[in-house]
C-alpha cells in the first residue's frame, strides 16, 4: 500500500527526552487473534508467495520486478528473427510481392499472430529501422525498408486486408504428402498438418481434425462431412492484376473490374477443386474408412447369417412341435382306450362287490335272528319287514359305505352287536337325511 498522508503535525520533542539511537521501545504488541484469511485475490497470492518462499516484503518486490522484466524480454524474443539482407533491400513499391509476416519478423506465427503481437513487432522493427536512426548512424537515408514495415503493419492490422493477404499467403501452406510418403506410418501426422493449415480458411471454428487410427466412426464421418461441405472465406482480390484507377473512365474501370472478378472466380473454383482433390486423396488412403466398411459388412453379414439361422431354427422348431403334438395325441388316445377297458372291469368288480356286500348284509340280519332276541322264532312278516328295511337302507347307500358296513358286520355273530351296528348305520343315514323313518318298518 502507498504511504498514507496525515494532516495533523507531529508533536515537538520534549527537551528532556533522551534515548540511545533516538529509539525507545516500551512494549510489545498485544496478543493477536488467529483468523482464517480468504485465499482470494492478488494480494493473497503475494502473501502466500512470501510465506512459502520465506521472503520479506522488499525481497519479494525485487524478485517480482525482475521476473516481470524477464517476461517482457521473453515475449520480445518471440518476435525476433534474423533479417534476410535481400528483404532489407526491397523496394516498398512492390509491396504486393513482399511477405508481410517476414518483414515484421513473424514468419513463424503467420495467420496465428495476434493483434498485440503484430503491434509489438511493428514497434520493435520501427525502433531498429527508423530513417532518423539510420541518418544518425551515418548511413544512407534510404527509408525503403521502413516503408515496407509500415505497409506490412497497415495490411496486417486491417482485418479485411489481412484476410486478403492470408488468402494468398503461400508460405503458410503445407504441401500435401505424396502417396509414397503417406503410405508409411505417418499418414495421419502428415495429413493432419495439411488440414490444420487448410482449416485457417474455415468460416466455422473449431474445425474437426483428421484424428488417428483410434478415431471413432462418428469423428471420421464428421471430418469428411465437414470438409466436403467446406465453407471457406478465402478470396483472391490480392492477386488482382490491375487495380482500377480513379483517373480512368468508367467503361475502362468496369472492364477491369469484370476482368478481376472473373479471375477471382476462376481462382476460387480452382481452390475448391484443389481442396476436393486433397480430400479425395486422403479418403483414398484412409484405411479407417475401409475398416469401418469391413466392420459394417461383417456386421451386416452376421445379421444375415443370424437371421437365416433363426429362420431355419424356427422351421425346425415348428416341425418338432407338430411331431410332439402328434405323439401326445396318440398317447392320449391309447390311454383313453386302456382306461375304458379298465373302467369296464372295475365296474364289473364293483357290481360284484356290491352284490357280495348285499349278501353279507342280508345274511347278517339272518344270522342275528332278524334282530330278535335269541330263541325267539321270527315270523314270516318279521322276516319280510326286516329284509325290506335292509333293502331300503341298502338302496340309499353308496357302494363304499356298503363295503364299510359289510366289513363291520362281517365278524359279528350275536344279535345285539349286529343290531347295534345296524342302528348306528341307520341313525347316521337318517342324520344325513338319506333315509326317512317312515320308510322303515322295524328298525327305527
Amino acid at each position, binding site marked *: 500500500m502507498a504511504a498514507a498522508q496525515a494532516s495533523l503535525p*507531529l*508533536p515537538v520533542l520534549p527537551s528532556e527526552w533522551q*534515548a540511545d539511537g*533516538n*529509539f525507545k521501545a*516500551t512494549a*510489545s504488541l*498485544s496478543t493477536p487473534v488467529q483468523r482464517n484469511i*480468504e485465499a482470494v485475490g492478488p494480494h493473497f497470492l503475494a502473501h502466500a508467495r512470501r510465506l512459502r518462499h520465506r521472503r520479506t516484503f522488499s525481497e519479494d518486490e525485487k524478485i517480482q520486478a525482475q521476473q516481470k522484466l524477464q517476461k517482457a524480454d521473453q515475449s520480445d524474443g518471440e518476435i525476433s528473427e534474423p533479417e534476410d539482407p535481400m528483404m532489407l533491400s526491397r523496394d516498398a513499391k512492390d509491396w504486393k510481392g513482399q511477405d508481410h509476416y517476414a518483414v515484421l519478423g513473424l514468419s513463424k506465427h503467420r495467420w496465428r499472430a495476434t493483434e498485440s503481437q503484430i503491434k509489438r513487432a511493428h514497434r520493435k522493427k520501427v525502433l531498429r529501422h527508423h530513417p532518423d536512426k539510420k541518418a544518425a548512424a551515418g548511413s544512407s537515408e534510404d527509408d525503403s525498408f521502413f516503408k515496407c514495415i509500415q505497409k506490412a503493419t497497415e495490411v496486417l492490422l486491417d482485418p479485411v486486408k489481412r484476410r486478403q493477404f492470408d488468402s494468398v499467403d503461400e508460405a503458410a501452406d503445407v504441401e500435401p504428402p505424396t502417396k509414397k510418403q503417406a503410405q508409411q506410418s505417418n499418414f495421419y501426422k502428415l495429413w493432419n498438418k495439411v488440414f490444420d493449415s487448410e482449416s485457417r480458411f474455415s468460416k466455422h*471454428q473449431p474445425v474437426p481434425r483428421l484424428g488417428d487410427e483410434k478415431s471413432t466412426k462418428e469423428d471420421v464421418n464428421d471430418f469428411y462431412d465437414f470438409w466436403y461441405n467446406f465453407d471457406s472465406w478465402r478470396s483472391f482480390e490480392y492477386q488482382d492484376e490491375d487495380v482500377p484507377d480513379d483517373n480512368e473512365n468508367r467503361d475502362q474501370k468496369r472492364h477491369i473490374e469484370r476482368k478481376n472478378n472473373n479471375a477471382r472466380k476462376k481462382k476460387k473454383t480452382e481452390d475448391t477443386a484443389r481442396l476436393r482433390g486433397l480430400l479425395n486423396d486422403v479418403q483414398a488412403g484412409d484405411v479407417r474408412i475401409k475398416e469401418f466398411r469391413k466392420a459394417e459388412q461383417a456386421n451386416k453379414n452376421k445379421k444375415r447369417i443370424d437371421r437365416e439361422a433363426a429362420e431355419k431354427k424356427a422351421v425346425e422348431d415348428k416341425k418338432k412341435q407338430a411331431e410332439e403334438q402328434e405323439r401326445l395325441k396318440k398317447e392320449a388316445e391309447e390311454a383313453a382306450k386302456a382306461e375304458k377297458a379298465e373302467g369296464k372291469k372295475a365296474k364289473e368288480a364293483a357290481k360284484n362287490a356290491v352284490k357280495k356286500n348285499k349278501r353279507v348284509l342280508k345274511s347278517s340280519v339272518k344270522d342275528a335272528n332278524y334282530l330278535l332276541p335269541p330263541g325267539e322264532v321270527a315270523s314270516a312278516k318279521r322276516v319280510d319287514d326286516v329284509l325290506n328295511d335292509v333293502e331300503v337302507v341298502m338302496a340309499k347307500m353308496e357302494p363304499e359305505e356298503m363295503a364299510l358296513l359289510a366289513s363291520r358286520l362281517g365278524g359279528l355273530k350275536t344279535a345285539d352287536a349286529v343290531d347295534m351296528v345296524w342302528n348306528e348305520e341307520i341313525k347316521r343315514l337318517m342324520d344325513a337325511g338319506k333315509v326317512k323313518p317312515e320308510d322303515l318298518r322295524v328298525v327305527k
Partner: protein
Amino acid sequence: MESQEEVEDIQPETLNRIYYLGKLESNVIHTPRDAKEILQEGKAEVIANEEGDRNIPSILAYVEGEEYHGTQAKNQLVRNSKNTVAYFRDYLGKDFSAIDPTPCQASAHPQKHDSTVAFSIQDTESESPNTVTVSEIATRHIRRLAASASDYLGRRVNAAVITVPTNFSDEQKEALSKAAKDAGIEVLQMVSEPTAAILAYDARPEAELKDKIIVVADLGGTRSDVAVIASRGGIYSILSTKHDYETAGAQLDQVLIDHFSKEFIKKHKTDPRQNPRSLAKLKLEAEATKKALSLGGNAVLSVESLADGVDFASTINRTRYELLAGKVFSSFVNLIKETIQSADLDILDVDEVILSGGTSHTPRISSSLQSLFPPETRILSPSTLPTAVDPASLSARGAAIQASLISEYDSEDIEQSTHPAVTVTPHLANAIGIMTVSEDVKRGVFTQLVTKDTAVPCRRAIVMNAPKGGGDVIVKLCEAEREIEVTKPEPKPKTNGAAKKDDDDDDDSDLDDDDSDDEPEEIRKKIWKVGKPLAEIAVREVKKGGKVEVTVNIAADMGVQITAREVGGKGGVRGALEKPKPAENGTAS
C-alpha cells in the same frame, strides 16, 4: 489435460488456459442464477447461454426424455412440475435427514437414497421414473453450463473456479467437486461468495487499495447470506457470517402472491393458491412483477386462465408493494444489523456495503440501508450507485478474476497456497497509530496507521507533517481501541411562541412540541481510546515545513520494525520491538 494442449496447438495466441467460471447458485424464484464468465483481455465478461440469458436458473426439466435447462426449464414448473428439479444445490453432500425439503414443494420432491438425496423423475422416454441422485443432477447442470461456455468460446472448457456459500461444509465441497469432475470440469478452487463479490469490485481499475470493513449481503431467492469482512491491504478475513433461509426473494414474491390472490378472491370467489397449477402460474408472474417494480413505479400482473379458466390482470404501484412487503424489508435490514453485531462491530465501523444476489435490485432495500448507515458508508447496489456491477453476476465475476490470477499455477500449487498453514494467520487485536499534535495521551490526537484485524505480516507507511517551525519531533507509537461515544444533544430551549404567533402557526408549534416529546436522537461518534504506548522515536532537526515518513513492518511472529526518516533526508531512525512473550501478554494492559 490433453484436450487443452490441443487447443493451444491450434491457436497459440491464447496461451492462457480457458476457464469456465460459474456460480452454482441456489435457484428457485428471484435469483436462481448461474452466470458464467470468461476473461477477455483482462476484462471479465458474463457469457450468455443459447437463449441469451446471463443469469441461468439452476433448474433442469425433462419432457419425454428431452432435457431442458435454465429459463426453459423454469417454465416447466407450471406444466411439468413433477419432472422438474428446481432446488438441489443445498442438498449436495448432505444426509437426507439433514435437508429442508420445503423449497421443493412446487417441483420434484427429494427422496432418500442410500442416506443421500435423490429425485424420482422421468428423464427418459420410458414411462417409469428413474431415481437420479442430486450429485448426478449437479453434474448434468454443470455439463450444460460448460457446454454453453464451450459453444461461445469455440474451445472446450475444462477447468473452473466455483463460488460457494460460506457455510458450505467440506463434504458439500467434496460432493460439488466430484459432480464437476464427472462433468469433465476440474475445480481449480472454491471461493466463498462474499469474497468473490468483493474481488469483483476491488479488481475494477478505479478501485483504490484501502483498509475497510465491508458488509456483503447476498440476498438470493431462497436464502440470504450476510458476511462482515475485513479488507486489509487487499487481504480479506471473514469476521462473521449469518445465513437466513426465511428472509429472501421468495418472501417478497409471496407478498405479491397474497396480494393478488386476495384481489382475485374478491372478484371471483376462488383462491388461486389452492390449486397447485394456478399457484405456479401466479408465482412466475409475481416474480416478473417484482422485477418490474424494481425498475418502474408501476407494474402489471396478468395471468391467462389463472383459476377456473378466468383470466386475471391487475396493477400495483411501488409504494403499495413497499408497504405490503415492509416486514420482509425490515427483516433484511435486521439480518444485516445482527451480523455486524455478531462481529463485535458497530454500524459506524462499516465502510462499504455490497449488495449481491438478484433481490438486491429492489430499491427499497438499498434506501433503507442508506438510512441505517452513516452517509460516509458506501452502499454498492444498482439503485444507489450507477456504476455498480450487476449484483446477480457479482460473485461469478469475482470467480473469473480469481481464475485469471491462478491460471498459471498448477493445481498442486493452488492446494498448497490454500492450505490452512498459509491461510490461518494472526490478526492484530488493536489498532496501531501515532500520536499527533501532542505526545500526551490526553491532549494528543491518535492517528491510525495499522487497523485492527490486519493480518500479519504486514507493512504500512505514513507521511506526517512536522510542526511549522521544524526542529526535533517525536514519533510516539501507541495501540488504541475504537470506542463509540454516545452523546445526546442538548435539548433546545422551548420557545413558547403561542402567545406571539398567529393562529395560523399553531399547527407548526404543535408539531414542534411533538418533536420535542420524542427522545432526542443520539449522536454516535467513533473515538479512539489510546492503550499502551509501544515505542518513541526522535527525529532530529527536521527542516522547516518538512515531512516525516514512518514505516511499520510487522512480522508473522508479531515482532515490529519501525523506521522514521525525514522525507528527502538521509538515514533515519530504525528500531525494533520484540515479539510478545506469551506470559507477558496476559498482564500487559
